Every structure is written in C-alpha cells, then in structure tokens.
C-alpha cells in the first residue's frame, strides 16, 4: 500500500500514514488493547443493525442470518440504491443514536460475538458491562457526514431482513479505512460519554442559576 505501513505488536492492527487501522476479524487482544479516546480506522466487514435487528435477535430470538463474530456492527440505516448489475450501492451512510439500542445491546453482543460497535452518542451500563465481559468496544463516528463515510464503503456484500425497510435492514458492507472512530467505551468498561455527562450535569446547575439571576433583572426593566 505504501512505505509507511507497519505492523503493531497487535495481530490485525497496522499503522498507515499515522492512522491506526484495524482489520476484521478483530482479535480479542486487538480490542482489549484499545482505550477510550483512541482514534482508529477499520477495514473489512461490517453489518448494519439498529432497533429492529436488535429486537429480532434479542427479543424474538431469531437467528442472526449473517456471521458477525469478531467483526463490527454499525448502528446505521444507509440510503442504498440498486445498480444496473443487479446489486446495491451505498449513496449515504452514517451512524444513528446508539442509546436506542442500549437495553438490548448486552444480549446482542453476547449472542452475535461482535467486537466493535460503531454509533452516535453514548451508551450506558448494559453495553459497558458487555464490553468488559466479552471484549468489545463502542466507538463514535462523527455523524451527519454521510458522504465522507459512504466513500469509505467498497461494496455491499449482502442484505438480509429487507422486509424491515431500507433503514432497518441488515446490510453487510465491506469498508476501507472507515473512520475516524473514537473509542468511547473500552474493555475496562470506561465510558467517555458517561464521564462527560456528569460534567455536563454539574455545569447545568450552575448555568440555570446564572441565567435566572440575569433574567430577573431583565424582567424588572
């Protein structure tokens, strides 16, 4: 690829042009060496899955029709169009709000054996517990950047459960250097968003007081 390619001590991790690139299937060792705040890119196979995929697998007990052990799950509903060659292509793709999947994520990670979850915003204690126990991480991909992200996709390799509609279907996609992915929950259970949320809550009380104090004088004018 280029002269700067080097392998890390980790099995499926390479440094390319100063980017840390992990390839699927991820090893547990690769994933356990990541820490919150790390910025990584991934190459290989991902599957999309959001509310309905989680409900089918966890609540309805349906078998996941694709094997995503050691791979990545992206909370995402892409815009996809048909190609002349009877296939599909990604027009736009980006992460959706991960928190919607929080209640079912522990069981999903356990069942699917997925090692890396890509989404938007934070997740909670269920997910953090699964990350600790099964060796997985949650990462944020900056959202609303659906064209930049679509250009990281190489091919749609399959689709299942299209009866759920385009956004909720389970799309299998091959990606190259997908990122930047910011690790927000690591395998120690450390949770970047929860930490930030506590600071926000603390600041909130101070600001409510400040705004009200200043508005009081406005009302008296």
């Amino acid at each position, binding site marked *: 690829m280029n002269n700067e390619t080097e392998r890390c001590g980790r099995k499926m991790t390479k440094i390319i042009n100063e980017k840390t690139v992990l390839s699927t299937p991820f090893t547990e060792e690769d994933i356990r060496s990541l820490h919150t705040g790390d910025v990584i890119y991934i190459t290989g196979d991902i599957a999309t899955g959001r509310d309905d995929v989680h409900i089918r697998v966890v609540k309805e007990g349906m078998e996941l029709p694709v094997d995503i052990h050691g791979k990545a799950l992206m909370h995402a509903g892409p815009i996809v169009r048909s190609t002349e060659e009877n296939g599909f292509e990604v027009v736009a793709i980006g992460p959706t709000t*991960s*928190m919607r999947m929080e209640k079912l994520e522990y069981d999903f990670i356990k069942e699917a054996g997925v090692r890396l979850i890509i989404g*938007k915003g934070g997740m909670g204690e269920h997910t953090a517990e699964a990350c600790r126990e099964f060796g997985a991480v949650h990462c944020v991909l900056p*959202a609303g950047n659906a064209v930049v992200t679509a250009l990281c996709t190489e091919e749609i390799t399959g689709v299942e459960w299209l009866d759920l*509609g385009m956004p909720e279907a389970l799309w299998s996609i091959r990606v190259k250097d997908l990122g930047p992915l910011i690790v927000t929950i690591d395998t120690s259970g450390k949770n970047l968003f929860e930490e930030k949320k506590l600071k926000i809550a603390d600041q909130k009380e101070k600001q409510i007081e400040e705004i*009200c104090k200043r508005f009081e004088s406005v009302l008296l004018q």
Partner: protein
Amino acid sequence: MTLNEQVEKMTDIMASFIGYTAIHLPDDVVSKLRELRDAEDDPAAKSIYDMMFENMRLASELGRPSCQDTGLVQFRIDCGSRFPLLEQLQAILVTAVRQATEKTPLRPNAVETFDEINTGDNIGTGAPSISWNIIPAWNGCAISTYLAGGGCSLPGHAAVLMPGEGYEGVVRFVLDRIAEYGQNACPPLLVGVGIANSVDTAAQLSKKALFRSVGSRNPNEKAAKMEQLLEDGINAIGVGPQGMGGKFSVLGVHIENAVRHTATLGVGVSFSCWTHRRGDIVFDKDLSFTTSTHPGFTYEQ
C-alpha cells in the same frame, strides 16, 4: 400554461427543491458553522468541524444527501388566498415528496403506526406534515421545508408548568433536556422553545422557532434577551460537536411565544441537528420563485 401544466411545474420545482435541501445546507447554517469552527479552541472539536465542511463539499460535488437520515419532510406554508394553485397545493406537495424520495434519493423513513410498515416513499397518514397559514388578498405562496431527522427529534418535549414555576421553570425545562439528551442529538444544536398556554400550542411554537433564520431574534426584547442568555448558558455547558466537548453546544436558541392562560405556563422544546436542512422558497402567481436560503438553486424544465 394550462392548470395541469402549472401543477406539474410546481410539483417538479418542489421535488427538485426538497432534493436540493437534502444535499446543500442553507447559507445561514453554513455561516454559523464556520463561525463556530473558527472560534473553537479544542483541537478534537475543530477536527470534527473540519470533517463537516469536507462532507458539505463532497455532498455538493457528488450531488448526494449530506446525511443519510433525510428525515420526514415538514412544510410550513404562508399561502395567499389568491394563489392560483391553492386548491391543488396539498396534492402537489405530497407528489413532490414522493418524487424527491425516488430521484434524490431520500431515505424512506415513514412507518405507519400500528401497521408498523415502512411505506417506502415518505408518504403516509399525516406525512408529509403541513402547517397552513392563509394570507388574505395575496396571490403568492411562501413555502418553508424542513427535513426532520430522527436523532434530533428524539429529545423533543412539552409540558404545562405551574405559573409559579415561572421563567426559572422554563430555563430548567430546556437545560434538563439538553443535559440528558443533547450529546446524542448531533450537536451543535438549533434549539426551538415555545412558550404558550398548553402542550399543543407550546410544542407547535417550538417547531416554528426552528424555521427561523439562524441568529434571528424574537421581536419582544425580553424574549430576545432570554434567547441570548440561554445560548450563552447552554454553550457554557460545553456539549461540543458530537457531544464530546467543545466551546459551543448550539447553533442558536429561538423562542416563539404566545399568550398563556392565567393559570398555566406551557413550554415546549424542539431540536435540530447541526445539519439543519431548512429551505425557504417563495412563488409568485406565475410560479416564478426566489429562495433566500439556497440562492444557488436553479430549476430547468
């Protein structure tokens, strides 16, 4: 032009315009994002802004929707009572959404409740949503479009407070929502606050506030001051782009207000993500149009 030709032309213009707004952000939003990026000190936050601008450039260049969640289409209309296509307007907008969904393409997001089926074309019961206002004795029509994404619609909330809770109650209501859900809704957010008598009027005004030009101020001086205080206070919380920290949390705070019942204080809050896809287009009676939000939009038959 026959009536049918006029209907077809307006449908086509609206379908193109909706598609255009999915690809290109309005000028006021782009300027605000540039201002926030330039004033940001945090290197990680700055790099997220840079990615946003790179995405805007690629979306324009490739003609693709800038965000995969092209939302549910919402319209606010000020239609003149003498606009020649007033009677046809509802059907025109429905067809325009269907066409835009196929041509742009937009993501089909409309799920019929109880049937739990995605309709596939963003059309369904009550979709697109249209808020009407008839202007007496005018022959033009002003249409505002908004693509309401899921992530930023999630934190929306309305309630009726006791009048004794006062403006402090309103401030707390808004900031509680930001602190609990703001990180996940694609900040920096545009915040719309409605203050009125009941949940429905407050909620409707909070959405109306999102249709205002970013940076505009409520004509009531005290309300305008409250907008500024909320903006400064929410920014100081430090939500930052993508909720990961930074100098700014919001694109702006807009308040729309109406009377309250002497015994109630209704408050609603609606949010829009950083990729705030709003468009304003104004037609005259001959279907010539102007658009202040997207001066680059042109239409060729």
